[in-house]
């Protein structure tokens, strides 16, 4: 069997890539994709730990994370469409009306 550590390392790498994506990219759609990648990395770790402990709990937790991810994406994309219809852009840096 493949050691759990391999899976955890892979999931850490994917999580870091997701964080990088959020910090580096400015396109709101790609930002959402990066968040999805972070959630998937966490899911992979959960399933790997569940396998290590031969327990179902970790897999059930993944189920909830997937549901929430779907809900978040739906609202996020709806908001994006609404903004785009008013402004015709998806670049978060072009959002200037509010100045930090």
């Amino acid at each position: 069997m493949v050691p759990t550590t391999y899976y955890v390392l892979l999931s850490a790498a994917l999580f870091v890539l997701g964080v990088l994506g959020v910090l580096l990219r400015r396109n709101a759609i790609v930002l959402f994709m990066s968040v999805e990648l972070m959630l998937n990395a966490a899911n992979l770790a959960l399933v790997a730990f569940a396998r290590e402990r031969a327990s179902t709990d970790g897999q059930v937790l993944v189920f909830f994370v997937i549901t929430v991810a779907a809900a978040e994406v739906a609202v996020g994309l709806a908001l994006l469409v609404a903004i785009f219809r008013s402004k015709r852009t998806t670049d978060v840096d072009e959002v200037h009306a509010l100045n930090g």
Partner: protein
Amino acid sequence: MIQPPQIDFSVIGALTVLCVWGIALLLIDAFFIAEGQKRVTGYLALAGLAVAALVGLPSWGQSSNTFSGMVQLDGFSQTLIWIFLLAAAITIVISLDYLPRHDIEKGEYYPLVLFATAGMVLLAQSTNLIVMFLAIELVSIPLYILAGFAYPRVTSEEAAMKYLLLGAFASGFFVYGLALIYGQTGTVQLFSVDGSDSIASYLDRATLVAENNVFLFAGSALILVTLGFKVALVPFHNWTPDVYEGSPTPIAAFMSVGTKGAAFAALLRFLVQALPNLQAIWMPILAILAALTMIVGNIGALKQLNVKRMLAYSSVGHAGYITLAVITGTTLGTNAFLFYILAYTLTNLGAFAVLIALEKQGESAWSLEDLSGLWQRQPLLAVAMAIFMLSLAGVPPTMGFVGKFYIFSAAWEGGLVWLAAIGVITSAISAFFYLRIIARMFMYEPTRAEEASLSRALKVGLAVAAVAVLLLGLIPTPIIELVNNSLLVAAR
């Protein structure tokens, strides 16, 4: 066959009422309430909040859990539930006229407020990380939508987008933290009364060598980042001014008190119930963050000429004071926390309600200029605003003063003397910008001729908040007795 768990509905009474009534209200609103009559939906939502508050009465003082120990009803959560229901009620009252005035009245507004409140209630009760995660989402998703509710205004959509992107980013951290903690301990339960597996019982068994518990430490740190973002601790506070400014004003008010209170409750449960054995590690870290938060929030507020942004920075500063109460980990700290949350809820909702009274359709009235000479235009409004500002600054005889006094004495008892000192100093700094507003209102000539639009509902909301802040500041004994009886069930 599946054995359904034993369910004790008295534990999740308020949650059940809010969810069921929220769904029912959606249907009632869609089929029976005509366009333009939407304030009826608001009144019905208020009735639901009242029922949710009443179902908690019979079980007051008890402590029980249900759903395999995932939700806990104790004095602490019950008092918080009442505070959240009060916050939601005031939010709805001050929204009743705000929505039609800004032409954004839609029936879905009120059920969404109910769902967000249900999330706050659940967050105050959750003793399990996965329930905590779902509760955070149940608070956040309705608020993302409500923040973008004023959609012809682009700033509202942008505020919602900013809040959503950062919120989703933060929940990614929470889930990874949860996964790591699961990997280390094999459970996501914070603590359990019956001695079954939990993070607290794992820590009781484990030898606390950092090397053996890396996943637990890393996971806890990630979860603290998420909760820090939700309560706007420095350095995760940057989103607040923009989001508060862009959101519809009642929603900004609701976010500033409700989300903050609920996330702090989760933080307190996580630290005190799951990780009491690690207090030596998390206390210094959070103490530094609290100090930074108090300093950055109050200094940031100094240079704001926009009152709404000023209130946002001030809410960051107040997050620092509340953190002080949370990290003591003592009963006195928990009591001070509850008192302060109530004081802050009433005061801040009142202050935002004054801004709502000044706003006209399509234009904002949040600059200091707009408050000039308010005393001559609307004496009662000016007096109410003065009370709220004094309370935020912590000047007697207001609730804010008693709350700050309570928190600083809890910090003193808990050995955080230097932190209490920073708290007192930053409070003194904050007095400057709160008093500046009072000076504007009473000593300047009016620059605007228009009347503020004070509807009856808004008057009621303002009067309730102002009288409560003043009266409970003069006679705080009933509330102090209430919070003294609001015990938190702890692991040991």
